[in-house]
């Protein structure tokens, strides 16, 4: 016997409903049910960080979060950072500094950087590296990523 | 991964050979062996439970004896699959017996085991330790059994066990 669980999520400010199976992850529901495909699936094992999303103000792994356990929670994905056509500070800094190459890791990286700056608005380079240590990028070598977070931090929040 | 073990048994080499080549006496010494079936004179089928922490699974293993030189050398291959074929296990093993006087035998074996599939990706280092401890448990169980029979002067323990296990295997 399987329980089908009805859930309601607030995603980027709007209410969404879905019926999920107990083993469905938040990542699955976001991407494959509700089509928020900005959030990426890399390893599905919690290692790469591509699936990072913010749940109730904290960065977590979408691939390790059981969707049924997220009933009633507030979620921010990469799609929710910009305000209309205006990018968030972090997005803008990543764009300007050319921190993005293939881009696959970027939704997770930018979400993690956003969460980091919320917790530590003026991080040291060390703190930036630690804060993003759970986000792997196979292209960039991280130098410009770190720089972009510094620039976003200098410009202030959001 | 390689697993090797050497242990001493206080019994004559012929008896050790008889025990180790008879599935009825050897199967109950294999940790996790749920049941076995004799297919031909040189091949057996067994169900073996493997557990690592929360993971518990049964492998259906077919063992083929590929070379026997009684009472000192036995080579075998084993191939097993989990239900649903989620992982496969293959092993090539060699067993050597050495007489250490009239009532003592040294048993040594070496296996090259490969695990492919879902379990092959998980905790290989721990699996290897687990395999080693299974080897040690086997050695203790086997020695106890052979020596018990030897102590009762070649009694019928072996036959009684084989009856029990023929049932378990059916």
């Amino acid at each position, binding site marked *: 016997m399987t329980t089908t669980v009805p859930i309601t999520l607030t995603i980027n400010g709007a209410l969404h409903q879905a019926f999920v199976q*107990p083993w469905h992850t938040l990542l699955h529901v976001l991407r494959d049910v509700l089509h928020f495909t900005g959030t990426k699936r890399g390893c*599905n094992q919690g290692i790469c960080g591509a699936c990072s999303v913010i749940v109730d103000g904290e960065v977590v792994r979408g691939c390790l979060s059981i969707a049924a356990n997220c009933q009633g929670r507030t979620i921010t994905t990469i799609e929710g950072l910009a305000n209309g056509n205006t990018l968030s500070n972090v997005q803008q800094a990543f764009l300007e500094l050319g921190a993005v190459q293939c881009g696959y890791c970027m939704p997770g990286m930018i979400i993690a950087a956003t*969460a980091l700056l919320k917790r530590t608005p003026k991080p040291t380079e060390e703190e930036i590296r630690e804060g993003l*240590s759970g986000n792997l990028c196979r292209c960039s070598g991280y130098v410009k990523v770190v720089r972009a977070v510094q620039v976003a931090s200098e410009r202030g929040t959001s | 991964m390689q697993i090797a073990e050497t242990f001493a048994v206080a019994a004559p080499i012929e008896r050790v050979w008889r025990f180790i080549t008879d599935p009825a006496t050897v199967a109950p010494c294999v940790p996790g062996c749920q049941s076995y079936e004799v297919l031909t004179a040189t091949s057996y089928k067994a169900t073996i439970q493997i557990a690592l*922490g929360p993971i518990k699974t049964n492998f259906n293993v077919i063992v083929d004896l590929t070379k026997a030189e009684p009472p000192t050398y036995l080579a075998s291959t084993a191939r097993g699959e989990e239900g649903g074929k989620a992982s496969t296990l293959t092993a090539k093993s060699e067993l050597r017996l050495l007489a250490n006087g009239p009532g003592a035998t040294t048993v040594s074996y070496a296996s090259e085991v490969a695990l492919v599939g879902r379990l092959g990706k*998980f*905790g290989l280092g721990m699996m290897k330790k687990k395999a080693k401890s299974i080897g040690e448990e086997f050695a203790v169980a086997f020695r106890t059994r052979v020596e018990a029979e030897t102590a009762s002067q070649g009694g019928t323990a072996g036959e009684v066990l084989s009856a029990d296990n023929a049932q378990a295997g059916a």
Partner: protein
Amino acid sequence: MKFYQPTTLKQALKVLANEDDARCLAGGATLVAMMNANLLAPSALVSLSAVKGLAGITRRKNGSVTIGAMTRHQAVADTAALDGGQRLVREAAALIGHPAIRNMGTIGGSISHADPAADYPTALVTANATVTIENSRAKREIDAQNFFTGYLETALEPGDIVVAVSIPAGVAGAGSAYEKFARVQGDFATVSAGVVLALEKGVCRHARIAVGGCAATPIRVAAAEAKLVGSRLQDSAVAAAGVLLAAACDPIDDFRGSSEYRLMILPTILARAVSKARVRAETVS
């Protein structure tokens, strides 16, 4: 697969008692990864997220600190409640994985999974912690040292839930440290060491050591601790303790390091932990 979201411990224990092969879902950082890898498919998930009273850190009058099973790693890393001989537990929590993992993972989940390379087991054994376990019939307490029994194996029986972990106040004036060597930031330990020390005029009068990543469970050796007690923690005493610990270890070979490598670096990791704990004990006393 079924999904349960109990709101009381009693309900959670009842579900666990009645469902064969049900598993608690804490942070999911390990359980869901294993489900995704097709390694586990429990008959039911019993989420502990909504169970009242399982999360939080309480400091008692006698100085002991109780950490609820559902307390996230980040909350332990941030707490001011753990100090002196208890500080290494907070230090270990801060070194677990990455921010997202620390926001998800819980102390109850970490010790129940009992990975020999995880950080809490070693820190808790060093700090002489007690694990409180409950099932539908009874409640019991067990020393951290006896809780860990093997590779991914613990004293937990089917139907048990870890409710809390308590860290005693320990020896007055003690300093402690947790040192971890990992290949990259946020990886499990190749080798780790926890140390609690108390000094009197530069002479060690109390020592407790455990090393992680070097055997199926955290390893403590009374004789190694005895090498430090009465010494001035000079290099030779610390090295002698390292030799005794290494002799009691039997590390695995894997991508985090060969068995030989782990044994080789163990004394260095121990020495680092000792020197940190010593400085802290000196500032306390």
